[in-house]
């Protein structure tokens, strides 16, 4: 474990920026989001939740795969997807870091999504402990401990006041640490004591959060019974069918593939899609889910039943963004409670 003083942050960003593209939580017009760092940007490492999740860095909202052009009878294709530059994604919270693993489960199993794989391989993820979890946080319901490094992150850091403690977790993390060289200082016994105190304090805060008792395991019936439950009618009624929840969610990963039709040239691109939309998975015969109830049910069955059946882990990390963003205050916590038998 090493440490870096906060007054060296500017040096830290510049050093990282030499060998990598650097993505940081940047504040703009009062909202914090991960984006490519430029010198004049206002960095905000204190915001617990970025406005939308950082999944767009590993899984862009739109990504062109292919450009095509016809010239007479000749068709030329150009492969343009993927990520060529090495990058560092700095300041990812544990819940969001775990969401990357959940998306990996889908895209990195056979048949592997090569563009996604490339993007993941090029990235070094530096995660940060959550000093002040928010009232809408419920990561502990999914076994996430925001004071410790989750599996898969390359470096984990803790903010102990004037300095941050830095611990590489993987080979990629070691390489980054080595490259940054003498920006680091060795940690002292006092730092370690501070760290222990901090971990305890985070644990206490997490256990007293208002949603700490949310328990997805209470949804334990037969798949068919859950699917047919009357609860869906009641809780889906107010759903507007927008994609706010889907697009701020760190774990939603459904996409569509479409073409820009430019006549003699065009582009084939992948873009995020939402099961809440009426044209989602539309096929020649129409849409398989014709009512908002069915679409709403799909989103939560996927996160709480289907995905866990396939991967033995829930597809929610309890970041709570959907709680804050849903225009009608319907969200996964209400769904878990209702399906789990609460009145």
């Amino acid at each position: 474990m090493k440490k870096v003083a906060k007054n060296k942050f500017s040096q830290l960003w510049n050093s990282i920026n030499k060998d990598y593209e650097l993505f940081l939580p940047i504040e703009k017009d009062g909202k914090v989001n991960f984006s490519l760092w430029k010198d004049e940007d206002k960095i905000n490492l204190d915001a617990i939740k970025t406005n939308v999740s950082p999944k767009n860095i590993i899984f862009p909202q739109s990504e062109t795969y292919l450009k095509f052009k016809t010239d007479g009878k000749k068709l030329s294709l150009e492969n343009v997807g993927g990520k060529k530059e090495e990058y560092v994604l700095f300041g990812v919270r544990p819940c969001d870091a775990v969401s990357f693993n959940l998306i990996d489960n889908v895209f990195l199993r056979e048949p592997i999504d090569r563009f996604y794989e490339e993007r993941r391989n090029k990235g070094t993820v530096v995660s940060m402990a959550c000093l002040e979890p928010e009232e809408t946080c419920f990561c502990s319901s999914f076994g996430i401990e925001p004071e410790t490094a989750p599996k898969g992150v390359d470096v984990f850091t803790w903010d102990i006041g004037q300095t941050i403690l830095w611990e590489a977790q993987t080979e990629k993390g070691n390489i980054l640490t080595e490259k940054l060289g003498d920006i680091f200082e060795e940690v002292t016994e006092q730092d370690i004591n501070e760290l222990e105190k901090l971990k305890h304090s985070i644990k206490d805060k997490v256990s007293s959060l208002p949603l700490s008792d949310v328990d997805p395991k209470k949804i334990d019936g037969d798949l068919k019974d859950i699917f047919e439950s009357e609860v869906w009618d009641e809780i889906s009624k107010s759903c507007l069918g927008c994609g706010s929840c889907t697009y701020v969610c760190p774990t939603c990963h459904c996409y569509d593939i479409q073409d820009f039709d430019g006549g003699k040239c065009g582009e084939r691109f992948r873009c995020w899609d939402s099961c809440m939309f009426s044209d989602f998975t539309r096929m020649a015969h129409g849409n398989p889910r014709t009512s908002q109830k069915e679409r709403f049910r799909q989103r939560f069955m996927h996160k709480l039943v289907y995905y866990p059946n396939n991967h033995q882990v829930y597809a929610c990390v309890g970041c709570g963004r959907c709680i804050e963003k849903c225009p009608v205050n319907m969200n996964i916590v209400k769904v878990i409670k209702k399906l789990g038998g609460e009145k």
Partner: protein
Amino acid sequence: MEKITVKVRETARQAFSSGEVDKILGFAKGDFWQDSYPIFITNENEVDSLIWDSFCINNLSKYLIKELKNTQKIGVFLKGCDSLAFNQLLQDNRIEADRVVIYGVPCVGMIDAEKVKKEGLNKGLLEVKRSGDEISFVTKDGDKNVSGRQFDYDKCLECNHPNPVVYKELMRDEVSREVNKEERFKDVEEIEAMSAEERFSYWSQQFSKCIRCNACRNICPACSCETCVFDNAAAGVSDKAKVDSEDQFFHIIRAYHVAGRCVNCGECSRVCPAGIPLHKLNHKIIKDINELYGEYEAGLDPSKGAPLVTYKLEDIDPFEGHKGGK
């Protein structure tokens, strides 16, 4: 329990027992102080889940389009802004007036949870009570009382219609709110004062934040098409790519499509997860309509012809009046 909640429940109970309605659209309270959410109830036993407080921000009138398809008679709780939207839906022939009973709720303004959070008052907050402009933040360690409108949504501070403009009965006495008419289009004037390049760059930056979630469209009471052109695959303008041209196309088409029908409820900006001030687009169009065709408020009087769909010989040529926006 707030007095108004008692009245709301009483009214709903009465409505079911007299057979006045088959369904009621109202609000229930969730886990959090700011969590007041729409519920639709169909019998007297559910009446006690209804509430009314300073977070009943949603406009329930748009739900009438869908709910009237499966229910004969519906009761709905509407604020002033919501009632304008109700009238507009009537004018757009999207609902039938005689199948709806409006319980009007005069409103002093709704509280913006973001503003509460910004002041750090959300920590350990259990409940927010409001009486006029006296606000009480209830925590387990005691209450904090604040006087004033600093926590109201921005849009509520500019509200012209705190009292419903159409209703069967009111849930409390009418309220009065002072609005500075001079400042009414200040936000638009700031943008109009920009050069064309500055304006383009301002809106390009705003639209580039869009995440294409459609929340603005789906919450909008003026967006009531059976199938939106952006959902119609056959139209060939599906809007799924996250590129500037499509972001801009979507928002400008939408602004023009609701022109003259937007009731200025500000819900588009409230629900935008990216924080785009979408209402300013509509606000600009309202200002232009007022300047070109005389004062007009969509939803105020459904019998009055809407300027953009009523042709008069003496109508001004907008390109003379406004020089095409230049």
